[in-house]
């Protein structure tokens, strides 16, 4: 198939970006979206032009590196896929496709379609862990976890940290991302000790990084490649409110 691409090009963090038009020709429909970009890039390299830069690694929907906004929607309008899992059979010959980076205040562009998402790492560093020293763990089956709880926390733990939720949100909020990790750890017996501290620290870090508030539009859930439910946001709000109250009492 033949396509027209409208691609965001930006030579560096300080540079101003613009949309460039490319023809993507003879694209096999079995190819993935990123393989389509590979083909276009080989064409660019052969004429000495700089290839389009984008993040990617596993190319199977699990590392969370790929991060393209396709026709205005992070990871495209297909539900439950990452950019790398999108296949060209979902497009038609002659289509024009707009390709832009994930956009958010907290995700500055590095080059072309590549952005800096290290703010998400710092939210985890603030409290997204169980503080257990290596070697000090009790026997694994001494901590029973009911299957239902295990399944529910798994649904939150499946987050790949791609940041699509942030890019889709009009406020660039990271509540789905943060809520998923808080839900995962705060609902396990292992996570109880640090429950309040965790939610307070993570939410405060989220604010400090410039992520916005949640105004209940739920675009995040719609684009999440792992289908994480916005329920984790209401749980986050509840855990946060409880922790703030307890913090107040302790003062």
């Amino acid at each position, binding site marked *: 198939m033949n396509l027209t691409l409208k691609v965001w090009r930006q030579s560096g963090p300080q540079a101003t970006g613009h949309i460039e038009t490319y023809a993507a020709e003879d694209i096999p429909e079995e190819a993935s979206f990123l393989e389509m970009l590979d083909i276009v890039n080989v064409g660019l390299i052969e004429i000495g032009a700089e*290839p389009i830069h984008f993040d990617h690694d596993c190319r199977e*929907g699990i590392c969370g*590196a790929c991060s393209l906004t396709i026709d205005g929607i992070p990871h495209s309008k297909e539900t439950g896929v990452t950019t790398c899992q999108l296949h060209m059979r979902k497009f038609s010959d002659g289509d024009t496709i707009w390709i832009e980076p994930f956009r958010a205040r907290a995700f500055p562009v590095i080059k072309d379609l590549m952005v800096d998402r290290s703010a998400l790492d710092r939210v985890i560093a603030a409290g997204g862990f169980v503080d257990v020293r290596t*070697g000090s763990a009790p026997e694994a089956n001494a901590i029973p*976890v009911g299957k239902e709880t295990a399944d529910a926390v798994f649904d939150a733990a499946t987050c790949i940290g791609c940041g699509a939720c942030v890019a889709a949100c009009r406020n660039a909020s990271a509540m789905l991302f943060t809520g998923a990790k808080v839900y995962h750890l705060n609902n396990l017996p292992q996570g109880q000790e640090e429950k309040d501290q965790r939610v307070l620290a993570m939410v405060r870090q989220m604010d400090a990084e410039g992520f916005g508030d949640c105004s209940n539009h739920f675009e995040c859930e719609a684009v999440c490649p792992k289908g994480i439910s916005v329920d984790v946001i209401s749980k986050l709000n509840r855990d946060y409110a409880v922790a703030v109250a307890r913090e107040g009492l302790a003062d």
Partner: protein
Amino acid sequence: MDSNTSASILDAAIPEGPLAEKWSRYKSHAKLINPANKRKYSIIVVGSGLAGGSAAATLSELGYQVKCFCFQDSPRRAHSIAAQGGINSAKNYQNDGDSVWRLFYDTLKGGDFRSREANTYRLAEVSLQIIDQCVAQGVPFAREYGGGLANRSFGGAQVSRTFYARGQTGQQLLLGCYQALEKEISKGGVKMYPRTEMLDLVMVNGHAKGIVVRNLITGEISSHAADAVILATGGYGNVFFLSTNAMGCNVTAALRAYKKGAFFANPCYTQIHPTCIPVSGDYQSKLTLMSESLRNDGRVWVPKSREDAAKIRRGELKATDIPEDSRDYYLERKYPSFGNLAPRDISSRSAKEACDDGRGVAKTGLGVFLDFSDAIRRLGKDKIAERYGNLFQMYEKISGENPYEVPMKIYPAVHYTMGGLWVDYNLMSNLPGLHVLGEANFSDHGANRLGASALMQGLADGYFVIPATISNYLASQKPGSVNTAMSEFRQVEQEVKERIDTLMTVQGKRSVDSFHRDLGMLMWHNCGMSRTDAGLREALQKLPGIREAFWKDVRIPGRADGMNMELEKAWRVADFLDFAEVMCHDALTREESCGAHFREEHQFTEEDDVVRNGYTNPGEAKRHDDLFCHVSAWEYKGPGVDPVLHKEPLVFDEVPPSVRSYK
């Protein structure tokens, strides 16, 4: 090619004592560093996967100053994230007769008696603590209704000892490890350098004391010094271009260390995984694994007749049109007691044989069926969805076919590399100070790794082994004795800059990928699933040509002083081109078949007793224990010169090598 068997060069430093007591004795006698002194020592950890991430976090907990590097934008994206199936541990929660001994035995036998007994035993022993650690971190392993941990069985084992987190075990283990790492980062014990690639190793007075890195965003070249260096940089499967590895996986760190004198052990041992989605076209950038756990419920088959297979390929027949008695469930037929769970090397070669026989079912002829219809009938669609839902979804996204309705098509693909830098029992290479963990070392898997044991090894190395062994080296070192102002650092920086300049000034006509593809094709055909003397010699003859073409005709647009993905790829491919050579030398000189290394000249035939008495099948890998019961460790001797082979003899005190039979 000289060979050197002197044990002094390759002293594995295996502790004295009975096998089962070696590790505890070692720990009781290892040199320690007192808590107040630990913070004076700095350690570089290259890699943030399961091996590097767990090591960095744990060493920081102990009080060392750690610097951790990865080329991805976040440590959470290391390739370990992609592991699907599970992690082994000898917990015996199923009460099905498992034990540390049995896990050790299975791993040793699975590796076709080409691994070190003492290391393999330690791995099995430490496997118990790993699960405890991960559960305490909140890793959401699969559970039974009663709240206990669930298990499943995996290729090459007759007990159920694999712990799993849906089809995302690697992701959940890595996130546990990443969170521990982030915790240490926030406490200041680890300084993390993401989007930073190690381009060379720095040696000071014969000891590994630092690295030279490129900041992938700014292009800046800089040095880091430390009291010890740990490489946990993963495997080299991408030497084949197409593999199940992530796009960025590379051999650079290990190859650079090899060029600085570290021995490369068993580079020819590369694992081909039986269950991957077949190749569909030459635009393809990578292959996708379908977890081997699928073989618990899926049945592998091809049509008995070539005619039926040809009709399927042409689309004239569907899988469901082939009646039961016209199907060849070849694994169940050839290996009745293991059936579809036969080890990877065996399953992969059997698929290749069926396809070479003209009975492949994918359009290209290279594919076999993995059929769930019986399991769906037996257990119901919901149960299958619960077990494999995300894998089925992944398959459908890629292939456009629904595996609940039609059988999957699979074919073997390069997946894991058992070879790696040579290390002793301390996980230290022959270069003092240079430690190697995870897939990057030659490790505990011998000539073939069993499923669910790489995650186990990575975490064993990082959480439990290196924290106990590194003090043995550090205790002999004065902390902080090296800094980046030293001339050794200047010189390596200079070499790195010159090599980058050379790459940037070629300005030829071809993309980096085009050379990588040529290399991959050559390696897949001549040093892949089955190898011959003639094929390997041909590869060794052709490799210099590809390398010369690369250095004459590669084109890297843009500049070196900023983000440049082509430059990153070019550096890695240049290293793969050098590495391929030592890999072929190794495959050529190992004149036997063992595990994943299959030399066509060395297979059992009807002439052999073990075949005549029904113990094994004709065509199975034939080892030559009298000549090859050793680790092959290769020493670099300079460009254009053949590497030199050193042999570390393998001694089996507890389990005498036997012919592997999975019948």
